[in-house]
């Protein structure tokens, strides 16, 4: 997977992963990998700065939670109402882009 291609859609991927419930970093990496059959391999070096950026933008909110297995708490991220709006907008932008590209390259025969 081209890292630049991933970078361009990282925010959308992260917001979409949180759409159906709270997740912490490790779960997000696994979810994205599973949902895309390993096509996207998120590096945590990119993930945590990106999550912090989305949190600063007010689109997601982080909260430390203890897990049943014990040990140190993990930071659980939840989509905020503002984040839901942003996800809708980014999704629409992506769809427009996708349709435009498809118009040029055509459908897969």
């Amino acid at each position, binding site marked *: 997977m081209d890292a*630049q291609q991933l*970078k361009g859609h990282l925010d959308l991927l992260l917001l979409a992963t949180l759409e159906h419930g709270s997740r*912490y*970093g*490790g779960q997000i990496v696994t979810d994205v990998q599973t949902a895309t059959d390993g096509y996207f391999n998120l*590096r*945590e*070096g*990119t993930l*945590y*700065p*990106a999550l*912090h*950026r989305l949190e*600063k933008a007010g689109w997601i909110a*982080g909260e*430390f939670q203890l*897990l049943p*297995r014990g*040990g*140190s*708490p*993990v*930071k659980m991220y939840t989509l905020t109402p503002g984040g839901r709006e942003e996800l809708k907008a980014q999704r629409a932008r992506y769809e427009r882009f996708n349709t435009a590209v498809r118009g040029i390259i055509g459908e897969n025969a």
Partner: protein
Amino acid sequence: MSGVERYLKQATRGLSGQARRDAQSELRGAIEDKIWRSTLLGMDHGDATRTALRDLGSPYAIASGLTQVHTLPKAALGTVLAGLACLLGVQALAGVPVVQAAPDPTQTAPLLCMFNEAAFRTMSAAQAKPLRWALTQPGGRARLEADCWFRTARPVNNYLRFTDVLAAFTAGGLTVRAMPGTVGLLMLRVPGQDGELEFNVREGIKVIDGHAYLSAWTLLNTVRSKTTLPVQLTGDVNPVLDFGPAHIQLGTVNAPVRRADLLVGDVYALLSSSVLTATGDSSEFVWNQVPSAAETHRLMVQVPPGTLVVTVSNQQYVGEDPQPPFYLFRLQVADQGQVPVSFPNQRTVQPVTTLQAFVTATRQRQPALLVYRLDPSDLRTPKLAPAPASSLKLNP
């Protein structure tokens, strides 16, 4: 300090106060989670820890990403960048493609190596106790600081005045178009290359003294990942960056930029991956580009003048230092076939030219120095080449 704690410290370097404590807690939780999952699969704790840290990747990459998110005052940046479009026109007329440079103000050793109660409160009691005790000893603070500074890559002038960079692009015949409503996203048209390049340098921008500065690494990495043209950096001090018709001098007499400091990240990437492949070991590499007062040896190496020489020392592996070991490397320009190296307390040091010989020496606790040349002829694909083995000699 355990490997995990050292990793956390490095990965959050540049943050302070609550932001640092939170980021450390988050990463600690993430690491423990990975370790726990691996031990569930039958891996022993030591292997699981090493695997977890390797998966997380370079702590410096995390630190750099987090620092940019947390130390960039958004409002200030907006104000600083607001006038860029007008500045572009004005500076293009002046047409002087010289770029002023400055060090990253958050990376100075005095800020990172603070041993005081505020810092101790961010640690666990077990970590803070020996440090508090060490401070009560004669010369204790100086020793702690010296050790911390030694492990800290010193700040160099690797931030470039953003308006200067843009003016230099324009002066070189590139067309720069800022994308409205974005910060640090530009479209560049480069003569000789088809189409417009998306030049996204948002992550590398910092406000220093009220001006926007761009990390020279971000500039270099963005240019070489985007262009199909060869990218060259020529000259040891205040080097000239060339790609297409762009011809940009980085640095000035008052705040010089050294080419070796800009390419040291490439060496890190090349070395850490080759050592991982050779040993399967998640050894840590620390670079220190600032000459130390304790340079004890001179390495003689027969290379053409101006050759960039990489030296990797295993002194932290073979010494009696109780700290967790790491490899220390430096990238320097050979001056009359010599580069200075530091190997305190060692009379006999073996210079070697293969990774295998270096690993063997380290396992036998023999002081060794691994020597490479860096071939920067096209920075899209920098390469390490062996140094001519027969010419290597270390003089005390």
